[in-house]
């Protein structure tokens, strides 16, 4: 069971990374305009022909 000594902290760290990532996106306002984000990827005039 010695494997737990680094597996459990590792699992928690991964989870915390996800949580911090979510908080960062929330603070960045990435959930303010969900419909717009889906549409903004459609026009492709930023790609050089």
């Amino acid at each position: 069971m010695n494997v737990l000594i680094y597996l459990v902290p590792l699992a928690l760290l991964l989870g915390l990374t996800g949580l911090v990532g979510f908080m960062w996106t929330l603070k960045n306002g990435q959930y303010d305009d969900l419909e717009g984000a889906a549409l903004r990827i459609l026009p492709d005039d930023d790609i050089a022909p």
Partner: protein
Amino acid sequence: MAETLDLSQFIERGDAGTAHMTLAVDGVDCAGCIRKIESGLSKLPGVIDARLNFTQRRLAVDWRDREIGAADIIQALQRIGYHAHPFAPERIEADDGRQANWLLKCLAVSGFAAMNVMLLSISVWSGNVSDMTQVTRDLFHWLSALIALPAAAYAGQPFFQSAWRALRTWQLNMDVPITVGVTLALALSLYETATHSVHAYFDSAIMLLFFLLCGRYLDLAMRRKTKVFAGNLASFKAEYAHRLDANGELTRLPVSGLHPGDSVLVRPGELIPADGTILTGSSAIDESLVTGETAARIVAAGATVYAGSINGSGALTLKVVAAGAGTLVEEVERLLDKATEAKSRTVRLADRAARLYAPVVHSAAALTCIGWLIAGASLHFAIVTAIAVLIITCPCAIALAIPAVQVVAAGQLFRSGVILNSGDAIERIAETDTVVFDKTGTLTLPDPAVDGSSIDPDLLETAARLALSSHHPLAAALARRASKRVPYTGAVEEPGRGVRASIDGEEARLGSAAFCGLSDAAPQTARDRDVSCIAFTHGGRTAVIPIRQSLRPDAIAVTRALAERGFDLMILSGDRAEAVGPVAERLGLKQWQAAVTPAEKIAVIELLKSQGRRVLMVGDGLNDAPALAAAHASLSPITAAHLTQAHADALFLGDRLAPVLHAIIVSRRARSLMRQNLALAVIYNALAVPIAVAGLVTPLIAAVAMSGSSILVTLNALRARLRGPSESIMQSKSGDDAVVTTAGMAEPLLSPAAQPIFAGHDNAELVS
């Protein structure tokens, strides 16, 4: 025009000469719009940044004040093809935004904690039936505590704070048992962990918070969405006034920027922007939105006029006055205060459930503890079992039972064009058994319509296109008939008389009969006071076009459907008896009263109340506002006066009356689902409590039972979506079902240009 536009109340000044403004944009409905608007504005000199929020249909613009002005930006948008309206976000909306972000953070924290604690708990549960050593189990329990305690302290705040607020005023709400349950579960688990016990309930506590936060967030998100939409509509409708400054210059500014004492110029056909006394000029004004009276009132210098009336033929100068004693507005406000007070006494279903629930559960837990002690169990076992009862009855399902249905039903109403103003409106609308309608603007369309049955369609089309060049309100009704929305070039408006233009080489005139040289045609039609006429000549051909208040297209079908459902229907109108009678007759309503004052409307509603009726009031005028507040539930069309809208439980969009019927049908179904959900929660408790009292609850059973019951009530709530409202109206036996179906209303919110209040906009073609 030489007048200046003053938008300063909407602009936030930054440092270094920058400015910021939010605009509600009409007609945004595709991916192309985002690019068109943003790149179109960014090209303007002086614009720093333009960002469109597609979800809210709002545009945030930053610019350098010295290089460009707010009015130029709005004009630029107009050239691209979008109507934009400056928008001042209300404080309550910003508060909601912060609240939503906070709930989302709590949800994220509790979700993270629930996942990790469950990971450890499942290991413990499977370890308990295999070969886990006590040391490993203790380690896992301590790790769970390490995650669960800080997470619960953070994510539980919305519940703790609400429970504390309720307790401080000696009241009980659903958050009190939630707080007690979560706290005790965590405390017990900590004790059990410290004493090397097999069971700990960290996962139950955290999972409970996670489920409840999901419900809270969805509830708030739904309400925010409707508020944002209602805010946009309000800004589209915002009226502008022409202020006469001391130096004789005209400034165009939003009505909310007017102050008492200002002088205002009101041109023919314009809305009177504020209550005031007339300084100069005389005119006939249409007060239908204020009093419900359809015949015009003749006013001259010294007369008092009310905001919301429409100026007819002559230009007026007003002095703005604050609502003073003795005016109609003051009377309405006084009545409103009284009526609103009475209404706040109704108790919501959820609170009634909470009042019943908490004492029952808490005494059951206490009895369990005493019972086991009498039966000779150890003190430790008795307390653990009592707490297990509290944990398993923690009102996860009950707390979700009502909000889940509310969210689904509100979404469904939103799609059929009904915007809820208050959360418990659904419950109250569902309880009504009597519907009282106002006439003008509610049963009839807010704008008069052309009766073109006896006129050559080609001639009517020409007249309608010519009407596009006029500012007169009657001409606006005619202009809506124009299929080609391009005004004739060279059309000249002669204020107070009409419009003339040269069409196909021949002179055309539209306006008063005398203006068109048809003076002998006028007396014929002047008999009927409800019909106004516009005369039209083109070459040798002439026409007198009647314009009248017409019923909403589906008013007959809807009132019949309501009567079939056993509702008592009644009309209470401020208009004359000669105008109300024919409408009541056409709708087949036997109960109607005309020339009713606001106080009398309340009296009638109080009388109905004392007979045990629950009244749904549907009205739009300022004179209806007190009655709306006094009624058990209330609905207003979106064209209603501002004060009236603020006191309605819900607003409906569009030309049809069908949303009234939808609101009742959806609310009734929602109420029956709420009751089913409460019943499900009670059944769950009836099954779970005996197990808990017997002392057989393990953390595994608690987790399965709690999530199982939560998922069950949520799925049951989703059943509200299974049958659309249109279908259930189709089932009613009314003759002309086709009129009532919601086919054209499937997505009224995505194409607001289709709504009547936008009908005058010339980008209607672009949006199609």
